[in-house]
């Protein structure tokens, strides 16, 4: 009888301890447990062991929750593509994109890996490819048919010797602004990672930087179609003022109104701020001027600014901000610090 009693008492305590750790106890039960712990050292030790085990379970969360099956499918797709670089970057056969359709949701993520790992194959394979790359500076150039483009820093555009024969195909990495020569017989087609952008003659902007988790297309004039490479039924048609966003995470393609007035500032050097916080202003300046401006205190970061800067140098802009917001400018290496007296 005594043994049974002690077992059931133990079970009760275990339930109480578990509920305590799971935060499922009433105030009364909490004090009941606390007084039990205070009774002797061995109770406290028992409790500590349960508590350690409870907390240890958290540590395995990453390993337990990774979907290995999904990751393996992704790996298999990559293994299949090895040694057959044609599959990876489709340049002259639109149908090739459809080979990815069975990969469905992995295709977009996959493409990002493959582009980098196979760029060397690709480089040798299409030795008659022209590549225009902008590194530290924005670059403006033109294509054989007279279409012009501006590449933002760290972006590149490729086209091969067949450009303009039947159609006008280019491969983009990064950010670009196109001004396309109208030619309804030869469509202008941009391979921008997971999406294909098709146009007849227009000007528009694409951001297909690999580090972004989305591809953006913004149209300034004309009509542009944006389609998911693996499923051309997944497409939107854009006209002036529209923006398409392709999200790599779930392959969704959305059409939205464009609200960013500064999307082309890297090309035009025209920046418009309407009641924007200074931290946002600085972020835009850093992007456009490739600068490293930091703000020293929160008070300054959250001040609001309204200005239009048209083709100004960074120094001119900083001087205007300095006068408007009563700032001090300090230089430290290549870092520009905006501060003010009383700032920490």
């Amino acid at each position, binding site marked *: 009888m005594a043994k049974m009693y002690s077992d059931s008492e133990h079970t009760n305590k275990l339930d109480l301890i578990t*509920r305590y750790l799971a935060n499922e106890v009433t105030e009364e039960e909490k004090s009941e447990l606390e007084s039990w712990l205070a009774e002797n050292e061995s109770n406290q030790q028992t409790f500590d062991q349960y508590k350690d085990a409870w907390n240890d*379970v958290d540590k395995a969360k*990453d390993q337990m929750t990774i979907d*290995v099956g999904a990751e393996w499918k*992704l790996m298999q797709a990559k293994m299949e593509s*090895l040694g057959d670089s044609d599959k990876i970057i489709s340049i002259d056969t639109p149908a090739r994109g459809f080979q990815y359709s069975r990969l469905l949701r992995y295709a977009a993520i996959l493409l990002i890996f493959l582009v980098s790992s196979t760029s060397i194959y690709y480089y040798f394979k299409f030795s008659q490819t022209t590549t225009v790359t902008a590194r530290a500076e924005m670059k403006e150039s033109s294509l054989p048919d007279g279409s012009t483009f501006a590449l933002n820093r760290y972006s590149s555009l490729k086209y091969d010797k067949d450009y303009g024969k039947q159609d006008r195909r280019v491969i983009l990495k990064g950010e670009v602004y196109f001004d396309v020569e109208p030619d309804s017989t030869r469509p202008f087609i941009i391979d921008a990672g997971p999406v294909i952008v098709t146009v007849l003659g227009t000007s528009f902007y694409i951001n297909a930087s690999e580090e972004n988790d989305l591809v953006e297309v913004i149209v300034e004039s004309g009509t542009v179609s944006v389609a998911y490479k693996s499923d051309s039924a997944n497409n939107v048609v854009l006209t002036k003022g529209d923006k398409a966003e392709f999200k790599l995470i779930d392959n969704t393609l959305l059409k939205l109104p464009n609200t960013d007035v500064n999307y082309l500032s890297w090309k035009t050097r025209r920046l418009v701020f309407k009641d924007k916080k200074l931290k946002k202003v*600085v972020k835009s300046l*850093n992007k456009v001027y490739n600068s490293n401006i930091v703000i020293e205190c929160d008070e300054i970061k959250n001040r609001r600014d309204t200005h239009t800067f048209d083709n100004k140098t960074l120094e001119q802009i900083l001087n205007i901000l300095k006068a408007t917001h009563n700032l001090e400018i300090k230089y430290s290496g290549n870092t520009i610090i905006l501060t003010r007296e009383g700032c920490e």
Partner: protein
Amino acid sequence: MDKEVQDRFNHIDKSTFEMLFNNYFPALTSFARKFVHDMDTAKDIVHNVFINFWEKRENVDPNKSVKSYLFSSVHNRCLNHIRDQKKFDQNDPDIVIMDNPSFDDPSSQMEETELELKIKLALQELPEKCREVFLMNRYDGLKYREIADKLNISIKTVETQMSKGLKLMKEKLRQYINLIILALISWF
């Protein structure tokens, strides 16, 4: 980790590769995650290590341990990633990268990874119903009441399963902790 998994480089065919992938992917990703910012970067790094391993499977030292190769490759790629990020982020005031000297000696990160693995094995050994209830509470953050409603069982049953889960985990982990030090010796 698993005695049945081939731990040498010779004759790595696709099914062996798949087994290695399934066995090591979660642990390697969690290991990488201790060095890099986010889960996606960690996964990318591990994917790249595996694809590189697959490409080179015929050209590597057949006497080397696969496990040791995989973990040291992931470690090297993480260090490269951190180095590249530093260059890249110089212009971004929002990103602060901590210099952590312990990165050069990954043994504490490996020890942690190994412990996680033991915990994972212990969890996998729980009776199915018990594990389901236990993890709904611990990982999905559901209250006893919510679990009971979801699984259409009584709160009392949830409580019983929770207590059982905790008790078993306590017992299993006590056994496992002693094995960790031995397992580490073979890693590098």
